């Protein structure tokens, strides 16, 4: 027999359980009208403000006309957006997600992705090299939105005062490094260069060699899951490590992996490598203390003419609804891309922007903003960012590997074998879990 109290307790328990279960049933209702287009993005700080303005002007302008509204939700870094996208299904996915190249390998196999090449959007107006960042064997995974390239940032005031010009090659850089750096006693008070290259930088340092080189086969993973590491047997990593070690041995390279732009802004390093998307932020944090200069990345050697790969992010769509397409068209339009580029340092992916008079007069007044697009457009369009499994482990391994060669005097050939091993292990376990 169950007493009155017992019954009460049981019913309370039952209610609590039901309440708990209801938490799991919050799927969105299917909305055929789709008045609200949800966009998950990764823009914060200066770029976040610019993105908000773009959304706002849509919602108050074209959006109102069509009766559509963009609901922009900041989800953290590009990779955090990916994590959340991977954890979502049809019901909880946004209509559009802004992610970077690290998303490509997952999105390539996603059953929910609406291929950009299947959408009724003409890509004729887009820069070809920006599109190739998202081309896979299946088609176009995403539309480029925030395109950037790796740049060499330097303290122009310092370079000018020493009558030095920007180094074209790592050898030239090593030759002038002692002039750029400064020591008091044994400790370096100003580095010639601060930072440790990793996957992103190596895509350029390795990729530019001999006109075009890849880190892994299948065109850096774009035409299929990579199966082997190329930089080992092609000698491109060795060439880079040899030159980089020589630069490090001048004694003026700081192997710093965090806070590099703080060091740069405080004048404690004469140069650094960073994405062009940091341009506005770097200029504002230097705050006139010295003149900032940007230039193409010094080449590993005279034959490293491939230039750089286009980085940054793109817009991945999860349905082909007309309103989703309308938002995509808006975000990639010449006018939005102009505003976006001027506010951030990303460069326009729409060819139309480069013909707009407003943009032309903007880059005339702000020539620094024109270095990245010129650099990217003069690069080999086949040079693309690399799509790798276990991307994080590989990213940190490259840094550790270069640290061993430079600061800990590891034999270069051993270091290359180690790095090839790390990536091949990652490729193997990926293949095992996905190809069989």
């Amino acid at each position, binding site marked *: 027999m169950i007493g009155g109290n*017992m019954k009460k*307790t*049981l019913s309370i*328990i039952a209610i*609590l*359980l039901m309440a708990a279960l209801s938490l799991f049933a919050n799927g969105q209702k299917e909305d055929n009208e789709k008045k609200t287009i949800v966009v998950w993005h990764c823009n914060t700080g200066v770029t976040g403000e610019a993105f908000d303005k773009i959304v706002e002007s849509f919602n108050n302008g074209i959006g109102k006309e069509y009766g559509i509204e963009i609901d922009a939700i900041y989800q953290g870094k590009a*990779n955090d957006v990916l*994590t959340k996208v*991977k954890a979502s299904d049809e019901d909880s996915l946004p209509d559009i997600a802004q992610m970077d190249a690290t998303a490509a390998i*997952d999105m390539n*196999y996603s*059953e929910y992705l609406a291929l950009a090449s299947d959408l009724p959007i003409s890509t004729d107006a887009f820069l070809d090299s920006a599109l190739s960042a998202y081309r896979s064997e299946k088609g176009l995974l995403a539309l480029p939105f925030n395109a950037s390239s790796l740049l060499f940032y330097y303290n122009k005031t310092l370079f000018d005062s020493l009558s030095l010009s920007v180094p074209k090659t790592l050898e030239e850089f090593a030759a002038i490094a002692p002039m750029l750096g400064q020591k008091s006693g044994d*400790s370096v008070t100003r580095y010639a260069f601060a930072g*440790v290259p990793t996957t992103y930088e190596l895509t350029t340092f390795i990729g530019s060699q001999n006109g075009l080189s890849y880190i892994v086969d299948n065109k850096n993973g774009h035409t299929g899951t990579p199966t082997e590491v190329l930089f080992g047997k092609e000698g491109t990593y060795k060439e880079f490590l040899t030159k980089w070690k020589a630069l490090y041995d001048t004694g003026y390279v*700081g*192997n*710093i*992996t*965090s*806070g590099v732009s*703080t*060091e740069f802004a*405080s004048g*404690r390093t004469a140069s650094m490598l960073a994405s062009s998307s940091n341009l506005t932020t770097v200029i504002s944090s230097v705050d006139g203390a010295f003149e900032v200069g940007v230039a193409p990345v010094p080449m590993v050697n005279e034959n490293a003419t491939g230039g750089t790969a286009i980085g940054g992010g793109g817009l991945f769509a999860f349905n082909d609804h007309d309103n989703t397409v309308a938002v995509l068209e808006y975000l990639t339009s010449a006018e939005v891309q102009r505003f976006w580029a001027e506010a951030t340092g990303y460069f326009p992916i729409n060819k139309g922007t480069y013909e707009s008079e407003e943009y032309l007069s903007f880059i005339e007044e702000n020539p620094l903003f024109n270095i990245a697009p010129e650099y990217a457009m003069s690069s080999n369009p086949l040079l693309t960012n690399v799509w790798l*499994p*276990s*991307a*994080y*482990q590989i990213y*940190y*391994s490259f*840094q*550790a590997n270069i*640290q*061993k060669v430079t600061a800990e005097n590891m034999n270069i050939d051993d270091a290359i074998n*180690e790095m090839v*091993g*790390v990536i091949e*292990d990652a490729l193997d*376990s*990926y293949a*095992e*879990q*996905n190809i*069989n």
Partner: protein
Amino acid sequence: MLTLTYMKRKENMKAYLFLLPSLALAATFLFYPLMKAFASSFLTISQSGKILGFAGFKNYTKLFSDSGFRNAALNTIKFIIFFVPLNTVLTLLAATLTRKKRKGTAIAEFIFASPIVISLSAYALIFKEMFRGRISIINRIFSSEINWLSDKVPAMFVLVFLGVFLDFGLDYLLLTSAFRSTDKNIIDAAKIDGADDRKIYFSIELPLIKRMLSATIFLALKDAIMISSPVIILTEGGPFRSTETIMFYYYIEAFKSGNRAVQNTLSVLMTLIFILSMAIYSRRRSGNEKRT
């Protein structure tokens, strides 16, 4: 007799009924996933969750031969060696100094216990700012030139320091309350017998709080084995993978990269480590109880 056993059974039933919700939750969110992870750790599973075949111990041998995992295990051991003793000594010291209520101890108590009220990530971010670069706040205060988060040894030091900071509040509260709930009569009796403060502390007070102390040590050990969020926020495993811990490795490889083999094998391994340390701890505890 009959009615008595019936009554007892009824009582038991009631107890089980009360336990039912937690048992149901534990079963769905703990035991079932754990069993599934255990079974899956012997299978090859695709990223999308399809079973591709039987793997035997291959997932385990692969994990142990992975340089990233071995590095992470080594770093975790390093962290435990630095963190657990330092944390224990510092919290015990603070609790010892403020164990007697006097004028002003409330201020000290407030300060020592305050780390408990601010969230972990907030502290990690504050630390990150304080130790950022050569022009960091800490370097300015101590006019030092240390690259805290860019050199291996200082980075580990900052991580240990942050770990202590995060655990300090709770451990301090537990230890002071243990000190204060000891039987004052015993101490008074010892005083009358002529024992000095030192003797009282080491021979009476410390043994009396031994159980709580071992509980805090166990908590510290648990936190050290599981440390991940401070690493994710403060160092991202850097510089040069020197602060990558096992759970950080799990985070980047299993969670971020979706490696199912690492997900399952590492979950099983970590659970085993916990069951083992829990068993050792409770055996020691019951051993202590028998002796007292």
